[in-house]
């Protein structure tokens, strides 16, 4: 039974490297070494991913399409975030910072691969706890401390809700294994499902915090504003990734029985999240606060895709398209958001990085070689976030809205609901364009007020910004392969007794039934994903 160890080799590598960096960092004082070591850790984890993602494992770990996609995404984003924050504090806590970053990535990867509640929760906590440290290490001033404290308290509240929900699930079914839970809830003798429904709401709430969905979003603006650009970048993508992968695993796939009642709740959450996020963003002057609301709003769009796949039922083509839309959206959102924060972290005024929108006034015309590049990349990311073709963001929105419009479920009137949802989504996208374009307007169409300084040691962040910009354009111009990968990510091993829809790229279907005696069967592997 060494298979789980082998399959989890990338996570293990990351944890070992992190532990090494922590301890060695206590002994040696150097800065660059740790960053390089962490990069090496990411690289070896990637190598392990390529080499070891051959066989599937039963039991608590699954290496299905979604796990592969999310793990790759986490690795890639981890490397980008590492480069963005390669100048974390300058106060000698680099090893702690880098190590914690590695641990959060390992946590996301673990959460992506786990099909068992305890392991899943452990993965999610492995994301949360190092994040507290990262927030604390980001900058040592009152605002930063306040942000870290707020995040800490509210995050443990959310974790408590999540754990409460998990315990309900265990209580209702007597198993912590998702496939077994799903199977028992779906069986005729399951009886009343109110416990499962309550569990679903609790899980939605707990994970809603991670993805910053209304009404669990309150922390986001304050925390983003208080911390550094690099940390804000991390907060806006890493917990979302973990939260969505857990949502799909638990709420969408496992809780078969309770799902039919729950999609309207997700739909309402989506509408509330989009609308509140965008409406509040219109008022913001602080860049990170604005982007926090933007990140809330984007969670709303992604919830549309989740609602689509929940409403149509796991296994149908539309549900599959909805999940694919979710993963594509997450990718294009992450690219643009991380790129924006990376570009912003290069700019400063005095010792501080830029804070308010006004500080970007006339940025492309302030001379120098780096500032115009930063201005153009930020402009590009804003267009991508606003969903303007031919950039990546457009395809994300297209996929999400198209999946919402293709809903035709068994429930009466379901189609109408999703058309309304899509319309609200498009209206929201129009509102969102207002504040994205305001940033562009401030940058490009006003005379420079002052010249923001390009901060030292931000070469890594600049590289991340440029790389992300190139990626945003590449995805925008050639969305085909990214759609294909997102569709593969929608292949989820669930041991459900029905076949998954055929994947476009000729990917095999997973049709592993539950074996007699409630034992969990072996899933079918999909080779190496990307």
């Amino acid at each position, binding site marked *: *039974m*060494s298979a789980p160890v082998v399959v989890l080799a990338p996570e293990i590598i990351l944890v070992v490297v992190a*532990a090494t960096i*922590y*301890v060695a960092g*206590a*002994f040696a004082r150097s800065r660059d070494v740790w960053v390089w070591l962490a990069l090496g850790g990411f690289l070896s984890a990637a190598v392990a991913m390529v080499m070891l993602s051959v066989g599937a494992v039963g039991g608590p770990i699954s290496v299905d399409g979604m796990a592969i996609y999310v793990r790759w995404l986490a690795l890639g984003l981890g490397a980008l975030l590492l480069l963005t924050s390669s100048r974390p504090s300058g106060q000698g806590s680099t090893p702690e910072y880098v190590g914690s970053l590695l641990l959060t990535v390992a946590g996301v990867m673990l959460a992506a691969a786990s099909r068992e509640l305890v392991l899943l929760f452990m993965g999610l906590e492995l994301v949360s706890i190092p994040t507290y440290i990262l927030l604390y290490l980001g900058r040592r001033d009152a605002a930063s401390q306040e942000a870290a404290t707020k995040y800490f308290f509210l995050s443990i509240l959310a974790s408590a809700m999540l754990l409460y929900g998990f315990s309900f699930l265990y209580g209702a079914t*007597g198993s912590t294994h998702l496939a077994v839970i799903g199977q*028992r809830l779906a069986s005729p*003798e399951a009886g009343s499902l109110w416990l499962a429904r309550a569990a679903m709401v609790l899980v939605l709430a707990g994970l809603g915090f991670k993805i910053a969905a209304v009404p669990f979003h309150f922390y986001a603006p304050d925390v983003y504003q208080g911390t550094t650009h690099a940390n804000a970048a991390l907060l806006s993508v890493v917990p979302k990734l973990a939260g969505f992968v857990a949502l799909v695993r638990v709420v969408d796939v496992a809780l078969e029985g309770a799902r039919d009642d729950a999609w309207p709740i997700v739909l309402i959450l989506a509408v509330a999240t989009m609308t509140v996020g965008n409406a509040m963003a219109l008022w913001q002057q602080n860049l990170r606060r604005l982007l926090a609301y933007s990140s809330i709003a984007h969670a709303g769009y992604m919830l549309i895709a989740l609602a689509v796949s929940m409403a149509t039922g796991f296994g149908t083509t539309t549900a599959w398209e909805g999940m694919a839309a979710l993963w594509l959206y997450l990718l294009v959102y992450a690219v643009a958001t991380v790129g924006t924060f990376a570009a912003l972290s290069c700019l400063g005024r005095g010792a501080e990085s830029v804070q308010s929108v006004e500080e970007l006034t006339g940025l492309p015309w302030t001379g120098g070689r780096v500032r115009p590049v930063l201005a153009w990349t930020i402009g590009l990311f804003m267009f991508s976030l606003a969903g303007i073709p031919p950039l990546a963001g457009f395809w994300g929105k297209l996929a999400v809205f198209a999946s919402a419009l293709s809903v035709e479920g068994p429930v009466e009137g379901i189609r109408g609901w999703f058309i309304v949802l899509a319309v609200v989504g498009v209206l929201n996208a129009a509102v969102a364009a207002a504040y994205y374009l305001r940033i562009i307007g401030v940058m490009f169409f006003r005379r420079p007020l002052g010249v923001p300084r390009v901060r030292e040691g931000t070469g890594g962040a600049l590289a991340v910004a440029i790389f992300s910009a190139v990626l945003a354009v590449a995805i925008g111009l050639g969305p085909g392969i990214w759609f294909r990968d997102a569709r593969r990510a929608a292949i989820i091993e669930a041991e459900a007794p029905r076949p998954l829809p055929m994947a476009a790229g000729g990917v095999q279907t997973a049709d592993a039934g539950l074996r007699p005696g409630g034992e969990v069967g072996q899933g079918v592997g999909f080779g190496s994903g990307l």
Partner: protein
Amino acid sequence: MQVSVLPVFLLMAFVAGLAVVLILVGYVFNPGRPTPVKRMPYESGMDPLHDTRRRFDVRYYLVAIAFLVFDVEILFLYPWAVVFRSGPAWVFGGGMVFLALLALGFIYDWKKGIFHWR
């Protein structure tokens, strides 16, 4: 399928009853000579009810957390100690990895000077 929850309720009732009994016993038999130190909720540590801006020594918390970690460690080791003989070899190995990680943490703490109460 459903496990009987009666023992759980019994435990809850017992705990609640015990708490009431203990408080009652203390209330009935206390000699009633309060001092300021006695009136504090916690005799060690700090008064939790005061102005939030008050200064406090963070080293206390560091030690407390380190203590907590090694306290909880025991909690994990009990069940492991019961079963590791009967299970396959990796059960033993897993416990060792856990202990090794703890040891790493200990080394880290030590090197960072957490136990050094200046």
